């Protein structure tokens, strides 16, 4: 795979995880547990959606380099690829569930996302560094907020503790994928373009342990990490949840091919 093809794949992974999580958060709008949370959740969704658009724009430009000058637009990439072409983490496509499920998903992702963006802000690719630096400012707040909710719900009432623990347990198996690297990553790590996700595992775990400790929660043991066989979301092998989600997200573009909106 040429460097540009690897870069394109890598950018899609970044864009898709942001987009898919934003799409999930969009489902909450109008249905949050309290008005302030509706506003905050939508804010996080809007940030992620904005970030995905920056990654898509760059991905389209990179695609043009190896595709005779023809790169896809953000909307072609978002609305006209099928599930197997999506490169997001399996974690972010998991259903919203209850508020504890949503917050556990967000917390696992945010801690990783912030570490990743810190690494990417130092990328030798100036465009990646620029987008990551901008996104980092938003994502720091996301991580504070989701950690805060994990602590409140974990160390709240018996009911909230039970729900938060179940959410932490249920989503744990999708976290391993965040730290795996494959040929796409390796092609870009040496040149300092990509961030070596393997190096994020220890600081991620440290932060997660600290928050869960304060939340009186514990991590599950004896879990087999999904995607650790090299066939996970980043490679386009997803959970069943992505299909209905894309069907909903993409149907208007697909029902009226070529229409402009």
């Amino acid at each position, binding site marked *: 795979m040429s460097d540009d093809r690897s870069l394109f794949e890598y950018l899609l992974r970044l864009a898709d995880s942001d987009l898919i999580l934003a799409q999930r958060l969009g489902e909450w*709008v109008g249905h949050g547990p309290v008005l302030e949370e*509706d*506003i905050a959740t939508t804010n996080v969704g809007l940030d992620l*959606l904005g970030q995905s658009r920056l990654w898509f724009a760059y991905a389209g430009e990179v695609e043009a380099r190896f595709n005779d000058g023809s790169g896809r637009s953000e*909307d072609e990439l978002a609305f006209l690829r099928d599930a197997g072409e999506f490169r997001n983490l399996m974690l972010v496509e998991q259903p919203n569930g209850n508020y504890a499920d949503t917050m556990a998903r967000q917390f696992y992702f945010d801690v990783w996302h912030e570490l990743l963006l810190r690494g990417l802000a130092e990328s030798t690719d100036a465009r990646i560094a620029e987008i990551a630096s901008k996104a980092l400012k938003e994502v720091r707040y996301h991580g504070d907020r989701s950690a805060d909710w994990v602590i409140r*719900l974990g*160390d709240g009432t018996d009911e*909230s503790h039970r729900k938060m623990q179940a959410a932490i347990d249920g989503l744990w198996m999708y976290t391993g994928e965040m730290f795996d690297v494959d040929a796409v990553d390796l092609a870009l790590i040496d040149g300092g373009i990509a961030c070596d996700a393997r190096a994020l595992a220890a600081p991620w775990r440290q932060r997660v342990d600290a928050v869960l400790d304060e939340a009186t929660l514990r991590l599950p043991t004896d879990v087999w990490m999904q995607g650790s066989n090299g066939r996970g979301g980043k490679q386009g092998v997803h959970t069943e949840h992505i299909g209905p989600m894309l069907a909903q997200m993409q149907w208007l573009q697909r029902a*009226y091919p070529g*229409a402009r909106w």
Partner: protein
Amino acid sequence: MYAQMVDTGAKKLRSPEEMTPEERAFQARVDADIKIEPKDWMPEAYRKTLIRQISQHAHSEIVGMLPEGNWITRAPTLQRKAILMAKVQDEAGHGLYLYCAAETLGVSRDQMVADLHSGKAKYSSIFNYPTLTWADIGAIGWLVDGAAIMNQIPLCRCSFGPYSRAMIRVCKEESFHQRQGFDIMIKLCRGTPEQKAMAQDALNRWWWPSLMMFGPPDASSVHSAQSAQWKIKILSNDELRQRFIEQTVPQADFLGITMPDPDLKWNPERGHYDFGAIDWSELYEVVKGNGPCNRDRLRARVEAWENGAWVREAALAHAAKRAAAAEKAA
């Protein structure tokens, strides 16, 4: 207009001679365009009417998130998705500061929410209509937000300070909402024949309910007269409706779609558009709870509230634990 048919409790307008000295002084301030602030003396009926009006407005913002929020996951482009999310988020923000404005009158947000859920408090009839196609998101911005602005711009001058200030802020955002709605309509009307048909269909369904947003003819309404005297209603329902029609007809012409009213035509003698009879029985049924989506809207709000109860309880319990720990450490 997000507050309709607000009951003032008045049986008839009272003359200055019938008022107490306090009431006379209050009315003199209102007449002199001096803002009434929460700590000022005010007639009990003024306070109660404002609570009804502002909370109804706040509820409309919150319930209004549902028909549009319904399309966030299906917005046709990423840009449209971002704009729609931001717009619905604005509405949550409007709801929040309107609830705060009402709280200055001595009612809690929890009480207002409970009144919405029990059906005691109302919200605008318009949000009981379904959003069936993407064009409905355009039509809501163009017509519904357009009608809301028509009502809210005069309310920026209303007599109650917190409400007036909330309206100034809300209006700035509403005009952006209206433009984005019209922009969706332009795109559809310049698009494929299917898209243009979608736009026409949305106009057909939203036009009459939008006119009903201004409420029934108010020439004979004692509540409207009382609200006007208090300057919490600046223009009459019919004046606002006529202004809205005047503003909107040329926009429909520009879009190349047709108003679903064969009697709508320019009257050069009046210098205004004449329009067909509005079916008021429909408005009364929708306000009573019999509109196409009343049950769904209320159910969605109640479910969100009930499903969130354990989250709110946990947040309170955690805060109490924190406070207890801090006290122990001190």
